[in-house]
């Protein structure tokens, strides 16, 4: 096998993007979009890993390498992008702004893939920003009011996150004097820098309360975009945190507690808010919040107990991979459902989706179960004080996920058919689903994991609760009024706004003019002139006559100041 140069990972989509800018080439090249992440996939799977690349001339000196942590990330990210790209091609075949979407898609892909291999701050930050900002285009694709709102919220969070990241990185870089990303986890990085970096990344991760953009964006974006947003890009945040936090090297109990608090809040909030959503993708998005919170919890534990990190790390990674594929598959399945009319085909599809949902909920013999088990084991090493409620949290997470999945499936089952959605959008979904289902056998040590019956409890409980709720609803004729999208932000949105652009006519200003106009200068008359002559002559004579001889002061005498000094 030819050694793959690492720079091709981000370059492949970028080159394709550049080529797509030529209008004539577009029809031929569009089909290549799903292939753009393949070099990355190849790099992730290549053995041995591709050699690091150093490009001194690029930016502030760019270094690309594929670390062990990054490798799985790169793998699932690339795969997801490929699948999503495929579906996007199908789904948006005739949509207006398709090329714009694809451009944003490719740029976001570049960023996402690139940040996984970037080793220096500038490159990482660049790729991260490219991903964040390009995703704005993905969110906005639909062009409706929801998209506009989601887009505004998204970009606000994204930019703020970017800036926090920027601030953190520059603080860190200055403190360490290094531009390597790895150095940001070092001991000499100030806490403020770490906090800022973490804040920036947590925005991306969707940690409560920085998650506000997430349900909006996922709901608004087209399904393949939601898939990569949820599957790949949220993980970029995770990846970033894993890189810049001093995991496994230093104990930061305070930070750990804070992070854990955010994670727990997410675990609680996600099902609570997700269940009342009226749209399947929104529900899925809330479930992502929950899942990501779980991973954040893992990180918190790692921060609290550095010793546990060697175990926790792989567990979190596993969870991430699992969630990536499962959630992406679910999102990809949404248009597949849309393409069908309620009936047998849709039922089959829903059944397949239910499998995925169960996997997500951690049903035994799925990747979810493997991941959860790994996490559970790893958390054993967490500090003693944490043990009490970590289990509860895990249980709550599973339960919440299961409930949300049910809700999502419920909503999907009722979704009307969208006739302009082609049937072949299901193909990428099938691919994704296959991967998820095959995961236990693909994942390292997955097949060996013994199914834990306890894992069945949450889904079961969830099903029971769901049935109870259903019964309640049916018997009392209750109807659910979906809340306004955007939680707290929805309240802001309720206020009427004249125009979405921050533009007002400039305030009127008074004219500034120096010119005195319309004056009729009175011409002095000669009689006065004669008087003036006389007066001046007399005055001058007086002055001169009375002035003492010798140097009289016109101004101050020559100053002591001289230039030569």
């Amino acid at each position, binding site marked *: 096998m030819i050694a793959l140069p690492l720079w091709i990972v981000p370059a492949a989509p970028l080159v394709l993007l550049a080529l797509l800018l030529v209008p004539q080439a577009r029809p031929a090249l569009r089909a290549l979009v799903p292939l753009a992440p393949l070099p990355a996939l190849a790099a992730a799977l290549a053995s041995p890993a591709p050699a690091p690349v150093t490009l001194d001339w690029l930016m502030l000196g760019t270094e690309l390498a594929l670390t062990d942590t990054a490798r799985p990330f790169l793998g699932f990210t690339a795969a997801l992008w490929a699948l999503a790209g495929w579906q996007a091609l199908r789904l948006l075949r005739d949509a207006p702004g398709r090329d714009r979407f694809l451009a944003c898609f490719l740029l976001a892909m570049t960023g996402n893939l690139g940040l996984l291999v970037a080793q220096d701050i500038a490159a990482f930050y660049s790729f991260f920003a490219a991903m964040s900002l390009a995703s704005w285009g993905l969110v906005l694709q639909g062009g409706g009011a929801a998209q506009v709102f989601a887009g505004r919220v998204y970009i606000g969070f994204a930019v703020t996150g970017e800036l926090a990241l920027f601030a953190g990185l520059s603080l860190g870089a200055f403190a360490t004097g290094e531009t390597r990303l790895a150095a940001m986890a070092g001991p000499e990085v100030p806490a403020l820098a770490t906090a800022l970096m973490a804040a920036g990344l947590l925005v991306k991760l969707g940690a409560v309360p920085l998650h506000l953009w997430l349900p909006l964006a996922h709901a608004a974006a087209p399904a393949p975009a939601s898939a990569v947003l949820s599957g790949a890009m949220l993980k970029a945040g995770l990846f970033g945190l894993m890189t810049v936090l001093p995991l496994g090297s230093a104990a930061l109990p305070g930070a750990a507690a804070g992070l854990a608090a955010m994670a727990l809040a997410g675990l609680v909030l996600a099902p609570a808010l997700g269940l009342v959503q009226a749209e399947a993708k929104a529900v899925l998005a809330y479930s992502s919040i929950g899942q990501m919170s779980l991973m954040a919890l893992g990180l918190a534990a790692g921060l609290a107990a550095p010793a546990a990190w060697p175990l926790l790390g792989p567990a979190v990674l596993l969870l991430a991979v699992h969630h990536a594929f499962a959630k992406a598959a679910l999102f990809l399945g949404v248009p597949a459902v849309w393409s069908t009319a309620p009936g047998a085909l849709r039922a089959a599809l829903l059944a397949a989706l239910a499998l995925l949902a169960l996997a997500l909920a951690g049903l035994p013999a799925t990747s979810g179960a493997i991941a959860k088990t790994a996490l559970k084991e790893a958390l054993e090493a967490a500090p003693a004080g944490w043990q009490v409620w970590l289990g509860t949290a895990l249980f709550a997470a599973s339960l919440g996920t299961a409930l949300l999945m049910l809700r999502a499936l419920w909503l999907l089952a009722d979704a009307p058919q969208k006739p302009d959605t082609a049937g072949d959008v299901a193909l990428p979904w099938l691919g994704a689903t296959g991967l998820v289902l095959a995961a236990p056998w693909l994942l390292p040590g997955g097949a060996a994991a013994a199914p834990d019956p306890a894992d069945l409890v949450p889904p079961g409980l969830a099903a029971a609760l769901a049935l109870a709720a259903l019964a309640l609803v049916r018997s009392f004729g209750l109807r659910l009024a979906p809340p306004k999208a955007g939680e707290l932000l929805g309240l802001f949105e309720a206020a009427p706004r004249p125009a979405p652009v921050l533009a007002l006519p400039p305030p009127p200003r008074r004219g500034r003019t*120096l*010119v*005195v*106009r*319309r*004056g*009729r*200068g009175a*011409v*002095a*008359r*000669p009689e*006065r*002139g*004669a008087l*003036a*002559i006389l007066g*001046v*002559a007399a*005055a*001058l*004579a*007086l*002055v*001169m*006559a009375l*002035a003492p*001889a*010798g*140097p*009289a*002061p*016109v*101004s*101050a*005498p*020559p*100053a002591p*100041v*001289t*230039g030569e000094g």
Partner: protein
Amino acid sequence: MVTETSLLVTLPFLAALAAAAAPRAAATLGMAATLANAGFAALLARALLADGARETSLGGWEAPLGITLRADGLAALMIGMTALVGSAVALQAMGRPAPGRPAPAGGFWPLWLATLGAMNALFLSDDLFNLYVTFEILGLSAVGLTALTGSRRALRAAFDYLSAGLAGSLLLLLGVALAYAEAGRVDLAAVPALVETMRGRIALALVLAGLAVKAALFPLHFWMPAAHANAAPPASALLSALVVKTALYVALRLSLEGGAGIAPARAALAVAGSGAMLWGAWNALRAERLKLLVAHSTVAQIGLIALALGVAGNPADSTLWQAAALLMLSHALAKAAMFLAAGRIAEELGHDRISGLNRTELRPGAAEFAFAIAAVSLIGLPPTAGFVGKWVLIEGLIAREAWIWVALVMTGTVLSAAYLSRVVSRCLRGGPHVAPGARRPAWHMGDVAALGLAVGALALGLASALPFALLETTLT
């Protein structure tokens, strides 16, 4: 052998006579004489740069008895200024008027040549009484130039000018007489002796008062705006650029000769100069007619120069007076260009109301451009000599910590920018102010002259080393 000095003071008179005797050939003769004069001026400057200043005793009689012509750097600079401005103005006068405009009055050439001769004689003169006589020629010919158009306003202005000029002459003469009574001699070398006594100082005060009238120094400027505004363009240019300078030149001479003793006069000059600067600027801001604006600006600029002369201090221990000389030079070029341009603009428009400068069927032409450049020079923005002069002045004043004067100079600059921009902004009209088919005025000699002078004024700053080198050869 006949020297360039004597040719400078005699040739213009001969040419004036010839031009008066042969009106048909007046233009040719006048142009030739003007150019020859310029040549001699250049030769003189070169000779001075090479050999330093020189004095010529006329008729072989030494100074207290006879009259001495003194050719030094300052004089040569002024002569050069006259030659330069004069050549351009002559060029303008050579040109034919635009169609439909009356032909210029025939009397221009002899009067101009007489003015030229008188000015050369004045700049070279080293004798108070002789200066008085040259002022007489100058005053009369300037009145003639003012009245050249023969319009009612012009005649009226000319009369006012004449009256004021005569009053000034009277004061001058009284002063000279008193100086003679005191010192027994009237050459400039008597000035140091004069400042020693009270009588002598009164004599100098009278002389200075007379000069102030002739220089139109505030508050004795009443005659000037009307005279300069109503004269024919070349005449206005000459009057404003050159004639008023002569009085300032003499004031500078007296300042140079008088040394420390004349300080009160310098103070008075500075005060009057500040007043002139402000008053002239104020009136220029309010003026409705273009030429009146330019004329009021002359009042202001004269004020600036007088201020510079006044604050330059004792020439024995400061070279700031050179800045004043440079300002004179710069103002001469710029103001002449401005008047020529204003004349051309008025000729094309048929009037010179500032509010009516935006005539839609006319595009701005070369004259407007020349006006704008001249304005730059007048304001004293780089790279003009005006800027260099102001710079040297300000630098010197700062070194002396004379902050009030610095502030005044600055104020004057600001004000000049303010009133000149009134016109210049209209010179740059375009867009909605110009009709699509608007014509551009054809080139005339006047445009060439105005543009040449304006560019000269602009570029003079780069060549300021030459004036300064010349001024170095000035005898004090």
